[in-house]
């Protein structure tokens, strides 16, 4: 655990106390769990869970209020033909669209998540990042998705990474903080594990893999390592931290593999949208299609699912 106030030395000690990761063995574990055969009622309950855990996302330069309202409508009722499906967990947008989303979602229970801290690069001063977060919270964001300073991390300046997370968390107030590690830029699973430890020590409510702007985004091995970091943190402190793989998860089949990882690494306590989210923009329709296939035995044309 970290001594307060944190110093360069205490951060180094924290990073060095993190167990190393054997990449070959981690990938093997993921491949083995990827062969779990999820059928019938367990598949249906998984797909419903995936919807309820989804942060339905649009993060484009071309986003408009119209687009955001359409996405909110989809998130509140994923399939207009039926009322028995859960809503998504949140709508994830740029700060400029928080107010629109807030108004569109009303009292639906769907949260507004906003990226902040000069997402996706985060290459500005801490002051600007903190202002960005404050504005987002003021505009009504329930959840803030921040990016860590990968440059500082790779340069070994763990204290800078840590202090930024600490400052952003303070600026969040009551909003929940998801810390994006951008694992595609970290290079090794050892780094993923270290960055996870720093983010959790800094006060993250969730740790999140990716911005979706860098390839590879979320992968199963990265997610396994982050879940293992969460397990370790929980064993040491008793504190539960959430997990959000984001980017690149496009099929229902893939999303179920993530749930298998979650279930067999952290167990049922984490199996809800309070502790697990999918950051995705195109996953939802495949999930809806698979649900209809499970229920009717037939695949329907993509034209029967709304594109928003």
């Amino acid at each position, binding site marked *: 655990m970290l001594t307060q106030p944190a110093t360069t030395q205490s951060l180094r000690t924290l990073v060095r106390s993190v167990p190393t990761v054997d990449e070959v063995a981690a990938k093997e574990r993921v491949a083995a769990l990827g062969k*779990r055969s999820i059928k019938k009622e367990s598949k249906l309950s998984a797909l419903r869970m995936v919807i309820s855990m989804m942060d339905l996302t649009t993060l484009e330069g071309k986003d408009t209020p119209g687009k955001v309202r359409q996405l909110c409508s989809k998130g509140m009722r994923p399939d207009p033909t039926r009322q028995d499906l859960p809503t998504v967990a949140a709508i994830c947008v740029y700060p400029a669209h928080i107010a629109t989303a807030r108004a569109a979602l009303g009292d639906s229970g769907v949260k507004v998540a906003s990226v902040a801290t000069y997402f996706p690069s985060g290459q500005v001063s801490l002051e600007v990042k903190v202002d960005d977060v404050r504005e987002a919270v003021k505009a009504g964001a329930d959840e803030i998705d921040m990016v860590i300073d990968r440059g500082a991390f790779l340069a070994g300046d763990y204290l800078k990474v840590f202090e930024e997370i600490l400052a952003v968390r303070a600026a969040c107030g009551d909003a929940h903080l998801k810390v994006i590690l951008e694992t595609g830029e970290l290079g090794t699973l050892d780094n993923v594990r270290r960055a996870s430890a720093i983010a959790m020590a800094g006060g993250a409510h969730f740790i999140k893999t990716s911005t979706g702007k860098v390839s590879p985004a979320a992968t199963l091995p990265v997610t396994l390592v982050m879940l293992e970091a969460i397990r370790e943190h929980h064993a040491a402190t008793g504190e539960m931290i959430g997990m959000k793989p984001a980017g690149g998860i496009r099929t229902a089949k893939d999303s179920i593999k993530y749930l298998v990882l979650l279930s067999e690494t952290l167990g049922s306590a984490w199996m809800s949208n309070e502790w697990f989210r999918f950051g995705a923009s195109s996953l939802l329709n495949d999930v809806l299609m698979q649900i209809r296939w499970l229920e009717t035995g037939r695949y329907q044309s993509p034209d029967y699912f709304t594109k928003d």
Partner: protein
Amino acid sequence: MTDHTIEKGIEWEYAPSVQGAEMVSIASTYGLFIDGAFVDPTDGEMFPTINPATEEQLSSVAAAGVADIDLAVKAARSAFENVWGPMKPAERAKYLYRIARLLQERAREFAILETLDGGKPIKESRDIDIPLVAAYFFYYAGWADKLDYAFPGIDPKPIGVAGQIIPWNFPMLMLAWKIAPALAAGNTVVLKPAETTPLTALLFAQLCAEAGLPDGVVNIVTGDGRTGAAIVEHPDIDKIAFTGSTGVGKAIRRAIAGTGKKLTLELGGKGAHIVFDDAPLDQAVEGVINGIFFNQGHVCCAGSRLLVQESIRDQLLDKLRSRLDTLRVGNPLDKNTDVGAINSAAQLQRIEALVASGRDAGVEMFQSSCDLPTKGFWYAPTVFTDVSQSHRIAQEEIFGPVLATMTFRTPDEAIEKANNTPYGLSAGVWTTKGSRILWMADRLRAGVVWANTFNKFDPTSPFGGYKESGFGREGGRHGLLPYLEGPWS
């Protein structure tokens, strides 16, 4: 109204996903496969083979007697002298390739039958056993016409008729380890599968016939220890290859002393799985789990002794304890089953007796909280903590899902403890330090040393033991040596 409830902390269960067994047809009785055809045993004796997960009888197979073995050896001798021995090596290779391809085509059928007869999880027979079986046949098919390159300037020759006796833990894989190199080197074989797992070997016999393999090249004779003794004692057998218990291995060696028969033995083990404090811990836990619970621990090279550096003992045991509870024990045909059935009532008794000896000695243990089926033979994954070298559970091979944990303080002590057994088949090392892996591998007296992994097999890699774990190597170029006459003979 849309359902807004947030689904909290869901108990998500996997629905049963059972591999159907329809594609496997099991005859009610099986004769002996001698000289290319199934024949009845001369004295008509049969014995049942059961599914250890349900105790239901699957079939009834012949118990080969001395007269049957004589017929099988005569067929093998004739095939060796008239057909297989004189055949061009490239032609022999074609048959082996054909067998390998047929094994791949019928892989699922073999996997299901292996699971039915032996109790191992379908995910292992489907993803590990049978793919490896085909891989070993492909690999040795490649050597068949290249023996002069494998051993240049020696002009190696086949030995003749090999008598091969294999165990019940990997019925098809052990068959492949025995038959593929023997045939590639130009020998013919009489093979006895284990008493409790004869069915896949008999299916393999059918496959040999389908492949058009000349009569008598492969003979499959079923039976118990008496059948095995008849093979060992038959005067016209040139070589015995045995995989099984150290006790039987010693008896075989005594029996053939002075006969001129060649011998390779692959016997028991008490593999040390060594975890250093700088290991990638979460992966090491998976390695330890795989090392001892793979195939219910019915693995001669299992990592059945966990040697953990004392400074991380508590942490590692905590992780193992929670991991044990996520192992899925049950119906071997369920695709999500991790640990299947114990192979036989006799083996279950042996496991129970050794665990009782550990408890009587006052050693602490914990077990998986899984529910065990009521029918069939089952044992919950078990971990003993704080075992001493002098406990029976640290010295004797349990051959079941039971791990004995000990601690060490320094690398020297780890080596001393790891080597301090009559066995020497396998060992595993988990550390981030590459130089330490090499230092350890130099000093561990074990035929296989795995680094940051465990229970990995490959046709190109030789496998075999030191000390009471046997001698001779199977797999790789080394695996050809026991089946060839050369300066080493």
